């Protein structure tokens, strides 16, 4: 966590930008959230329960905690230390004393209230204020039962980030992964923060390498469910149906383009590991690479015009970029002799990949604009299978850092390492859009 003491100039500039948003929302002027710019100071006092019932109090605590965790994780906001709230009078949602909140250096204030809803429901109302401008920005009301308090909180946090930054929020996104906790490798899902880990496939064989469709409604994955086949399948989450896409040879490394139109994957259907591109429904499969070397791990650029992949065509395993039509091949990694699993950032300017030296795998970020490479992880372990959060600020990956392979997240600047799983071994995470 950074210090709360903000540089006055930066504070003023962010406030100016913020005022612009309020005055001219149609111009889509957002807070510019550059890396290295201090986070926005936000006041998130305890939520007020308008009911003496224990469940209203519980909801107030839980929802407040989840929003607080979400906004802290965003790297956009910096929550004021709780002790600051003791310096000013208690929040009265009907009469916000903006001067008080300004005095403790809050830029933004979220006031939350809980009341009783229908049946088992509670109603959570969140209102966001611009402290300096002394104005209301927006409010949201959610009705939820206990099991959905977290989701209501994530939705509110999504709204806050989206409204203030214009960015794609991540708090209702999911991570698909493979776990052997129930005996053999099966497909699982969890919330971005590791909560609600849920099993999706039930069979006695291996399911492997999941990838989200652009709309988050489908997951492509490899499965050994039929003897003698390592097929690529498509799971429709809403219909609960699984259909085969390609079953000849070994089929793996699916990757959907972000425009939702295409699916790239690897297959040995023609004898050697090559990259193929199909429509997003798995139809109309076309071969993209023609090479005696093994071409693996395709990842689309956010525009859908290019694909990054790994190939050992030079004699060592390196990262390449090729146009989606199959032309204009260029090598982009040069150091080391085993660079694999590229994942193109949603911002388009970076590729995270795995580099192996002996038995140590670390993640590196290649900046395509500057050609600079930065080391993201530094550990005596195998860190692999990186996948970006849709806002491009976080990376989920698998690592044997703590013994068994588990799923972790880390921020783009190597901070905030978190472990999300702990039961069994867990790997091959893929972050939804």
């Amino acid at each position, binding site marked *: 966590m950074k210090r709360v003491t903000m540089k006055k100039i930066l504070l003023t500039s962010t406030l100016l930008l913020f005022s612009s948003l309020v005055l001219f929302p149609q111009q889509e002027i957002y807070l510019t959230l550059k890396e290295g710019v201090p986070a926005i100071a936000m006041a998130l006092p305890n939520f007020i329960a308008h009911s003496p019932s224990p469940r209203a109090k519980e909801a107030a605590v839980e929802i407040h905690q989840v929003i607080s965790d979400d906004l802290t994780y965003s790297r956009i906001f910096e929550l004021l230390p709780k002790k600051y709230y003791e310096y000013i009078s208690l929040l009265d949602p009907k009469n916000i004393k903006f001067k008080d909140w300004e005095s403790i250096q809050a830029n933004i204030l979220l006031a939350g209230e809980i009341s009783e809803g229908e049946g088992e429901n509670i109603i959570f109302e969140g209102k966001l204020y611009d402290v300096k401008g002394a104005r209301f920005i927006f409010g949201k009301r959610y009705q939820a039962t206990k099991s959905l308090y977290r989701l209501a909180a994530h939705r509110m946090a999504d709204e806050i980030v989206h409204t203030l930054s214009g960015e794609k929020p991540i708090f209702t996104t999911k991570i698909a992964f493979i776990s052997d906790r129930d005996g053999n490798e099966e497909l699982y899902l969890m919330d971005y923060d590791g909560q609600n880990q849920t099993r999706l496939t039930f069979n006695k064989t291996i399911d492997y390498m999941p990838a989200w469709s652009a709309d988050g409604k489908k997951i492509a994955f490899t499965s050994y469910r039929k003897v003698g086949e390592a097929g690529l399948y498509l799971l429709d989450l809403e219909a609960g149906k699984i259909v085969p896409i390609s079953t000849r040879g070994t089929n793996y490394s699916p990757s959907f383009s972000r425009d939702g139109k295409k699916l790239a994957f*690897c297959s040995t259907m023609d004898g050697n590991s090559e990259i193929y591109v199909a429509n997003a429904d798995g139809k109309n499969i076309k071969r993209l690479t023609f090479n005696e070397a093994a071409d693996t*791990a395709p990842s689309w650029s956010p525009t859908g015009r290019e694909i990054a992949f790994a190939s050992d065509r030079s004699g060592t395993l390196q990262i390449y970029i090729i146009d989606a039509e199959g032309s204009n091949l260029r090598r982009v990694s040069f150091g080391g002799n085993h660079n694999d699993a590229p994942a193109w950032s949603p911002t388009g300017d970076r590729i995270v990949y795995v580099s192996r030296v002996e038995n140590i*795998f670390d993640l590196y970020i290649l900046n395509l604009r500057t050609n600079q490479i930065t080391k993201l992880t530094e550990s005596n372990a195998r860190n*692999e299978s990186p996948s970006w959060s849709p806002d491009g600020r976080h990376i989920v990956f698998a690592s044997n850092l703590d013994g068994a392979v588990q799923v972790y997240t880390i921020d783009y600047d190597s901070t905030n390492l978190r472990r999300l799983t702990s039961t069994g071994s867990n790997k091959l995470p893929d972050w939804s859009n």
Partner: protein
Amino acid sequence: MIKKTSIILFVCALAVMFLASCKPKPKTTPPPPPPAKEQPKVEKVEEAPAVKKPELSEEEIFMSKSLEEINLESPLKMIHFDYDRYEIRDDAKSILEADGAWLKKYSSVKVLIEGHCDERGTEEYNLALGEKRARSTMDYLGSLGISPDRMKIISYGKSQPLDTGHAEMAWAKNRRTQFLIIEK
């Protein structure tokens, strides 16, 4: 079904009754049977003369087993590879020759060759490497005269280690191709 059976039963009963009515009826009741002795005579139970089964040929024994039973016996031996390599090692050649001879003997067998890797490669790379190991195994068996139509290959990458250890001992065991008989 029940109806049919009961009709048959009824007809049978009628027939029995008819036959019974044809017999001349005894005029007197027969004397009661002598009371059973408390200690009956001991009868020796002897084994029926053994039926000699015809001798099965090896082929017949083989065909009488299920695929599962055959695979449990692993008649085809796995081979191992050097780190990051997929070429057939010299020590693996003699094993494949024995495997090839077995495949020639049981010429109806079809086999799945599975390529496996140790944990020191990335997931994607290992799937490609496992595939190459399976292919070089298939090619070597092909050079021994086994038809490619009888062989299918697949890669498991590093997902199915035989030994879950994290040192060379385990890795050496895990870098392998192994066989699964899928048809006989």
